[in-house]
């Protein structure tokens, strides 16, 4: 058992530092997205740190509500926006609940951005891109979607498949409606429980995959949704012969630290926070417990 630690320890820079230290930031705006989800606009207080806060689509932050706790949230806004970033938060736990009770001007703590596994925004240029999102899974992929729309000519056909429980749960509804009017992106919506005015598809988003017409060699697929969704989406994509190395999935796990130390988010030898949260299907194909 030979371990080389001496050099690593020597690398440790300042002694008065901590990777657990959040930067103070301000909530500048809050929008209601659905009855359970809110959109937060967050600006880091220190102007220098704000400028150096460069994130990639697919990355996440650890957000501290001081005195309550910390939780990981993926960043749904465009990486090109340097002034602030957004979060989309469902009121479901202690930290998210506390966030929902906060008002414009409230202070929070931010650590990040974290995650080396991100959506391959460079590699997918010149190809067709299909985004498959289920429920709250819309939040992480929105970052990539906005980035692609800001540079639309670099991509071939774009498709968004978005499934929700019911029409009231659709996130970013106004934006989605605007996208449906555009002719440079194909938006396919589906809900499990339609209301009387619903005109789009009914059922799970898996049902819409057989309609895809793109050739496997020329198409990247990005998937994000609840754990149960992946299993069925993968079966359908496999049926259509889409290539595992061109399918990217953003995985959810419990993350306490975000920096690869606390081990909660490990799946075998991968850590979701460091090696992910985005993985290619090829990487995790034989990774037990991943899907």
């Amino acid at each position: 058992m030979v371990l080389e630690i001496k050099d690593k320890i020597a690398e440790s820079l300042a002694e008065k530092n901590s990777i657990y230290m959040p930067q103070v930031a301000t909530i500048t705006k809050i929008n209601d997205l659905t009855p359970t989800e809110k959109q937060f606009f967050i600006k880091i207080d220190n102007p220098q740190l704000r400028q150096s806060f460069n994130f990639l689509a697919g990355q996440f932050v650890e957000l501290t509500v001081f005195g309550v706790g910390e939780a990981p949230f993926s960043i749904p806004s465009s990486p090109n926006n340097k002034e602030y970033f957004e979060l989309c938060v469902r009121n479901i736990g202690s930290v998210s609940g506390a966030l929902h009770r906060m008002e414009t001007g409230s202070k929070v703590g931010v650590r990040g951005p974290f995650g080396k596994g991100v959506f391959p925004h460079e590699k997918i240029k010149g190809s067709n891109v299909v985004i498959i999102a289920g429920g709250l899974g819309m939040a992480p992929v929105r970052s990539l979607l906005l980035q692609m729309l800001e540079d639309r000519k670099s991509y071939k056909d774009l498709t968004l498949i978005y499934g929700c429980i019911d029409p009231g749960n659709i996130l970013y509804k106004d934006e989605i409606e605007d996208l449906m009017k555009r002719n440079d992106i194909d938006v396919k919506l589906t809900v499990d429980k339609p209301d009387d005015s619903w005109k789009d598809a009914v059922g799970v988003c898996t049902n819409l995959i057989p309609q895809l017409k793109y050739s496997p060699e020329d198409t990247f697929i990005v998937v994000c949704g609840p754990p149960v969704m992946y299993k069925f989406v993968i079966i359908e994509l496999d049926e259509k012969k889409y290539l595992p190395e061109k399918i990217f999935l953003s995985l959810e796990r419990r993350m306490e630290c975000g920096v690869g130390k606390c081990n909660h988010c490990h799946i075998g030898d991968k850590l979701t926070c460091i090696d992910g949260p985005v993985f290619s299907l090829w990487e995790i194909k034989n990774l037990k417990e991943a899907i």
Partner: protein
Amino acid sequence: MLYKVFEKEGLKDLLAGIISSYEIFGPRKVDEVAYDFVVVNKPEQVDLNYKRTTLPPAKKLLFPSYESLVNFNFGEKIEVTPVVESRQRVLFGISPWDLNGMNFLDRIFSTDFIDDNYIAKRKKLIVIGYDAEPSDSNFALSMGAEYATGGFDLFISDLGKKYFVRVATPAGDSILQSFIMASDATSEDFALYNKFMENYRKKFKVKVELSQFHDSFEAVYSNNELWEKLAKSCFSCGSCNLVCPTCFCFNVRDDMLINLREGVKTREWDSCMIPEYGLVAGSHNFRPTNSNRLKQRYRCKLKTFVDKFETYSCVGCGRCVDACLAKINIYEDINSIKKEVNV
């Protein structure tokens, strides 16, 4: 590495010298049956014939069960300051397997992101190893952890008439030079040391056959029947995690002080054996049953870090075997798993 020897009587002088200059933690009998690494004030308090301590000494000092990471102060502005406490300390008499356990933690806390809260403490810790007596459940020899190649400043071996000491750092050399007379080891001393190690290795009674184990693990991964059988008696209490020298999982939490003007971000040990470990918002649990969790613990100890660091993250100290209320035994389970594959 320097190799030196010193006379039997030198050990007392060495201890007295260290006690006079440093805060030193050494093995001491703390009651009728238990030993623990505690601060010692007199050389006689150190008992190198100690029986295994409940908590691994390095983890106790470097990665305590509960520690502050960051302080908050809520005044006009929110002030955030890191807590990176580090005192110069000496850890005396740590066994080779516990040393290897510490080396593993060092690697975890310095890979990718440097964890300054841990590393600052580690940098200030002078480590002096000793070939301690293996307990009946110790299988460190099978794990390749009965000998430490690094991570210490000094490593002392008892050759009978004298001590053989491996000097790995200038800090260790300086301690030796300050307090006792040590001479360079001769080829005779090396011959005695080789003989000593040969005999020392014979003291490890428990043998585990690990060849190809991490491949075997893959083969039995989906054998639910086997895992349910192995985990049947598990109470999900987490004792195995608490006593393990290489377990490092923790939770991060925020606490407010009672004055409501100050707060602190802390970490406390977590256990992969308790149900809440894999729980995420919305009540989805990635490892809902005790067989999922035991399987994941064995995977972490015997496969994950072979893939990642090319080493097992189990050092074979046997603490979990003795701590388990349900008598779950990792080395017996390794054999059962291998048998399942070989049928």
